[in-house]
């Protein structure tokens, strides 16, 4: 009998009701007062004046500031000489200089590469794509850091054609 009583009592107010009420409380926080009558539910709220509330620091968790999208900081564009070819990122992704952690990089500054040689990897949505040299030549600079988030079109490796 007591368990049946309990069941009825707990149903006087459900969690769903509580969630709905709290949503209303928060969404009408800019009002002075709020009255609602719906079926057997009666709700009546008054809010503090704006000046009262302003004197108080907002309590944590009330309204989270909008999340700022993580954006890679744009690396300054390196000066690229006329006689140098830049290998650029084909898409936004993570740049890697070596085939796997702990392995030597594909290329170092000063290396001679052939057209089509792999000079790095880019990870786009968990898929790895090889970055290849568009020309044969000497690697003169590697402006992108290993493991860095790189933007579309950002120069990764500079090659001086031979």
């Amino acid at each position, binding site marked *: 009998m007591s368990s049946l009583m309990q069941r009825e009592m707990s149903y006087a107010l459900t969690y769903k009701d*509580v969630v709905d009420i709290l949503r209303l409380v928060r969404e009408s926080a800019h009002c002075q007062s709020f009255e609602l009558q719906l079926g057997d539910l009666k709700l009546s709220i008054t809010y503090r004046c704006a000046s009262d509330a302003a004197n108080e620091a907002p309590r944590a968790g009330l309204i989270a500031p909008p999340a700022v999208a993580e954006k890679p900081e744009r690396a300054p564009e390196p000066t690229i000489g006329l006689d140098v070819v830049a290998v650029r990122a084909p898409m936004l992704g993570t740049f890697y200089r070596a085939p796997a952690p702990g392995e030597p990089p594909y290329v170092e500054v000063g290396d001679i590469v052939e057209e*089509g040689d792999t000079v790095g990897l880019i990870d786009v949505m968990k*898929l790895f794509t090889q970055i290849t040299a568009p020309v044969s030549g000497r690697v003169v600079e590697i402006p992108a850091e290993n493991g860095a988030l790189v*933007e579309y079109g950002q120069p990764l490796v500079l090659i001086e054609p031979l």
Partner: protein
Amino acid sequence: MVGFVDESLRDGPQSLWATRMKTATMLGATEWINRAGFRKVCVTSAAAFETAVRFLRDDPWERLRLLKAYLPDTTIDVLMRSRNLFGWARYPDEVVELLFQCLQRAGTDWLKVFDGLNCLSNIAAHFRIARALGLKTSGMLSYSVSPVHTDEHYVARARELIGYGVDSITLADPAGLLTGPRARTLLAALKTVTQGRVAIEFIAHECMGLSHESHREALLAGVDTVATASEPLANGESVPSTLDILAIARELGVPADLDEEALRRLDDYFHWAAFKEGKPVAERVAFDSERYRKFIGHQIPGGMMSNFRNQLSEVGMLHRLDEVLEEAARVRAELGYPIMVTPFSQFVGVQATFNVIQGERYKTIPEELCLYALGHYGQPCAPMDPDILDKILVGRRAEAVDSEAVFAERVLDDFRREKGPFRSDEELLLHLFYGRDHVEALARHKSAFNGRPSLAPPLRALIEELARENTLQTFKLEKGSLKLSLRFA
């Protein structure tokens, strides 16, 4: 009689909460889940395991044991992705066996196994190994709309699964593409193969707004189980809600043995959990024929679409999204219509984006796509377009890869020697799937549990929350016999 498979702890969070449901939240639901009378309860998957380790810092093995302990009358079901198991590489049979042993020890009764190409030679060993351990298995076939995903395709695959000794066949519709009429013909075709000797289970997502009509047909066709979730974890990109499908079953006169009171309490609990976790609650989807027509071309899953928009907006090309999606439809056809689930949806999506951004098709090609073209993942659903195959493999050693070579490899002894010792096989598997860094971080920051977390009753929960609001002066509530009046200092 139709059985219900509960997906509130697995598919619901995976489809709606980016898999971020904590062990504590799950445990809070166990009292009602255990009482509800589900045929099975699906509790984890590759995504859930990885997210538990990497983001939630919940020990996924401990989670399984706790769930088993608090769901004593429940049959526990686990979803398994092909050879990837709970990781990303393709693993040999000995890893399959070790994982299944550990899952069984942690309380698993059933495994449902799928392969994104419906290439079943990839998973034949899973059924053999599971059966030898005494686990029940379901072979899962994923539905897609394409010229090759015909009744004949599914009939042939179902026959193959029955040959592997599965206990049931699950027809899965991950993108919610099955219309009522198509569900009817497809299930009728499957029944000609199973002949009532092998159970047919059904799981379909609501994404397109078709899940109620496909379930109606599934119930009429007499499927053995349907998969649903508690309402706050249902609908949208998830499966339909248990009470909705139960109502359809009642209307059709299909008996179901569920405790409705427990289901309502479960819904109510998850409404609170979603609110406290700041998670959205999805709605029923209205069917839109134009949206459906556009979607069946590319079938990029909802979860990937946001990533896609990000990529394109970074490049300042968000206005060309439609073009990329049209290109994705072409790429999907050229690759032989893989089912658009991990990892194949990434292959199609990333390649289509490269093609559009670079203004030249297949100029840049991800490594994994080359492996796919070489047969590393098994047999594509349809042969690849030969011109595209040439383009992908140009300048590469075009050696076909034997997709089955990995099956018999021995990797565990070397792994133990190089990376061990490990305190347990469970720990070894976490290291194998996610790497040392994540496992060590898990050990350092692991959530601790002292039994099932207690939850304040609704009225007290309300008062506690109101006390945290700093905007309130007075608060009055009347409902039924309840009268509450608060004045804040």
